[in-house]
């Protein structure tokens, strides 16, 4: 061979690349989560920070262990691509901010090992790992997973300091009654079951307020709906996600909610309450847009998103659980292969069914 290096194995075109990478995508998603997360830290104090940290760390840990056990060769590269950290981050956003410490490693195990690595790791899983963990935790430990606290901003006098926060996180000190609170969806469901309709329950003095950004109780990422929305819009602008799935999710909830609320405000929450509660914004912009577990075509993503929205509304309105996003996401994840199978892009020169276009249709005149 001559001076220039031998090329070895033949490779096909293209001999150029756009420069995108998995790591960059994951990094952008994480950046989009930063504002809402910081707001959450401020609102719920140190315990929430510890929970977030431990969740992310345990996800990374379980990812490393699984890869090691599977005999992986690119362990460091895989950890650095940020997908496991993102899973942990998203899971933490959906947990009650003062959940006991053991929720984090159990959640991390379910998300990473059962939800993802068992299927073969990144890109191979069929269910969204964070939502698998969230649902499994909710079903297995309903009590700690539905205990909410009133927001106590870090700057407030009564807010627990670093050490107190750690103590709350680790030892599960009995919470003062004043701290206990309910999320809007949980509260309305409980009251409804007690026979008090929405008109009365929401007017009550303990009723959680519906506010766009205000301090209110709920899961770690719930109060910051607007910041989540902003993060989502950032991802849209950077082209990381498409508009189809998020818009469809929001529409899937908003349309039935509007009809229901207009027909019977005593039994159906308002559109605003639906859109800002639970993990809906997070679900719409960060979960429903998960590449791996959502359909690949724009039309498929619209069906997928509408399905999530509608199921969320059905479960919230009629089901036994107050929140439905996680269940709805898992159900639509399960339907994704079927959606991908039946909704396919139209190939150039073919009709939707894949048959070649008719020559006799008329050509250039």
């Amino acid at each position, binding site marked *: *061979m*001559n*001076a*220039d*290096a*031998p*090329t070895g194995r*033949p*490779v*096909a*075109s*293209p*001999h*150029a*690349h*756009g*420069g*995108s*990478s*998995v790591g*960059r*995508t994951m990094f952008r998603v994480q950046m989009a989560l930063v504002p809402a997360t910081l707001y959450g830290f401020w609102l719920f104090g140190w315990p929430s920070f510890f929970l977030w940290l431990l969740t992310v760390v345990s996800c990374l840990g379980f990812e490393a262990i699984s890869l090691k056990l599977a005999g992986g060769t*690119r362990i460091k*590269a*895989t950890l650095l*691509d940020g*997908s496991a950290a993102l899973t942990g981050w998203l899971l933490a956003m959906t947990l009650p901010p003062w959940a006991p410490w053991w929720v984090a490693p159990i959640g991390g195990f379910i998300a990473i090992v059962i939800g993802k690595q068992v299927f*073969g*790791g*990144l*890109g*191979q899983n069929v269910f969204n790992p964070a939502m698998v963990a969230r649902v499994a935790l909710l079903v297995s430990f309903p009590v700690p997973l539905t205990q909410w606290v009133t927001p106590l901003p870090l700057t407030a006098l009564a807010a627990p300091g670093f050490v107190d926060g750690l103590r709350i996180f680790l030892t599960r000190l009995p919470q003062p009654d004043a701290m206990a609170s309910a999320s809007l969806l949980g509260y309305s469901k409980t009251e409804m079951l007690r026979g008090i309709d929405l008109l009365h329950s929401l007017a009550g003095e303990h009723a959680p307020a519906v506010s766009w950004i205000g301090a209110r109780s709920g899961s770690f990422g719930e109060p910051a709906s607007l910041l989540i929305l902003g993060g989502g819009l950032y991802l849209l602008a950077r082209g990381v996600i498409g508009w189809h799935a998020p818009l469809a999710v929001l529409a899937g909830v908003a349309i039935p909610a509007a009809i229901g609320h207009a027909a019977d405000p005593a039994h159906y929450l308002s559109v605003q309450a639906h859109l800002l509660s639970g993990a809906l914004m997070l679900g719409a912009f960060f979960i429903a847009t998960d*590449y*791996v577990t959502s359909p*690949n*075509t724009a039309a498929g993503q619209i069906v997928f998103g509408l399905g999530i929205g509608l199921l969320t509304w059905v479960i919230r309105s009629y089901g036994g659980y107050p929140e439905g996003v996680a269940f709805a996401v898992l159900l639509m994840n399960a339907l994704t292969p079927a959606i*991908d199978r039946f909704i*396919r*892009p*139209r*190939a*150039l*020169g*073919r009709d939707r069914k*894949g048959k*070649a*276009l*008719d*020559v006799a249709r*008329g*050509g*250039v*005149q």
Partner: protein
Amino acid sequence: MKFMKLFRRLKGIGWGVHPADHKRPAADAPVRAMPVSARLYLPLQQHLGGPARPVVLVGQKVRKGELLAEAQGAVSAPVHAPTSGVVVAVTEVAAPHPSGLTLPAIILEADGLDEWTELRGCDAPFALSAAEIGRRVAAAGVVGLGGAAFPSAVKLVGAARARVAALVINGGECEPYLSCDDRLMRDSAPAIVDGIRLMLRATGAGRALVGIEDNKPEAIAAMRAAVAGIGAVRIHAVPARYPMGSEKQLIQVLTGIEVPADGRPADIGVIVHNVGTALAVRAAVREGKPLISRLLTVNGRCANRPGNIEVRIGTLAEEVIAFAGGLKGDGLGLARRVIGGPMMGVQIPHWRVPVVKGTSGILALDATEVDGIAGRETAPCIRCGSCVKACPMGLLPLEMSARIRNGAFAEAIPFGLKDCIACGCCAYVCPSHIPLVQYFAHAKGELAGQERDRLRAEATKKMARQRQERVEREAREKAEAAARRKAGRAAAAGKQGEPACFNPRPD
């Protein structure tokens, strides 16, 4: 309806990618003509279709433009001597192909005189019949210069027979790095337009639509000036979007009509020719000059002096690069040698491959150019769907590659494997750096091999049956002969029933 149209306009073209084009400064540098090399290597198959058959003997002296090998079969093209000299060998030379395999070629040693053979031009080409123009183009060995190298005359004659309505002239040149078509349009616009009008004459088409990407304003201006007053030829600026220069995409953008899958453009009344081909057609018809040289781009970050060079067919890439200015640091940092553009060109194992009629570029790329970000390795597919969005054919690259990886080639067909034009958009945008096009090329090759095996098995079966019939017939004849012998014992010494030896194929 109106709303949908507006929506589509706002959305723009959904398919394809927009790679950094790297066309300048090579496109702005004036064309340099390369002197004839000492030896030229002329493969007999520089085109799609059957290889040409040599008509010269080793040791024979030929003049520039003389026929070396004639077309063989319905789809084929002849090869001519790019300069005067002596045929020194008919042998195998390295093909411009990633495999590094060879193909038969004629080796011509230049005598340095570079004297033309007698040329049969025509001063009034528009008086020629369509068939005559087709004949002249065929005799000149003109093939598509955009890269596919399909014999142009076959297309022209076929178009005349199919009564196409419009001629689409491809000045898209959507491949990054390449600028030879751009250069041709800037420098020889009137000649190109003349060639286009000859093609219109040859096909009987009423009008020609020239599509030029809007990142070549100089070329658009030159061509617009050249067509002033010629109503049949119109210049259209099309959005710069890869792969705009692909036949089906360009037709759709210019005419709004899709070429049916499994069909050809002629089916919808269109044929597509490259601007360079138009120029070659003009030379063939007006001057009787065969296709013996072409313009190509030398480019890439490793090339010292990127630019467009007029090169004789058969020159080694090595010599072209040396003439162009050599490689930086003598090839240090060179990651890939490419013939053609970076999106669809072929990687070659070494530079000692000849320039053929379809060679539009010679690229010396470094690692960052090839990988986007240097040192990226392939990661698992994350089903992000970037490839689906980028695919100009509306296929599902991720589904195809997943199946091909498992060895299930046929299962990839329902997802569009056969429609794939290997444009490379999917692999270009893949965040996991999956070599999707290579998966498809592998699967297409394997499927073609299976199809060959199947045909072969059928042929074998037929032959086995013929043999069985022959064996039976021979046995019967033998028996009959034996019976005859028995009947006429007197003539026993006579003849033998069995042939002297087997001769299974009397034809």
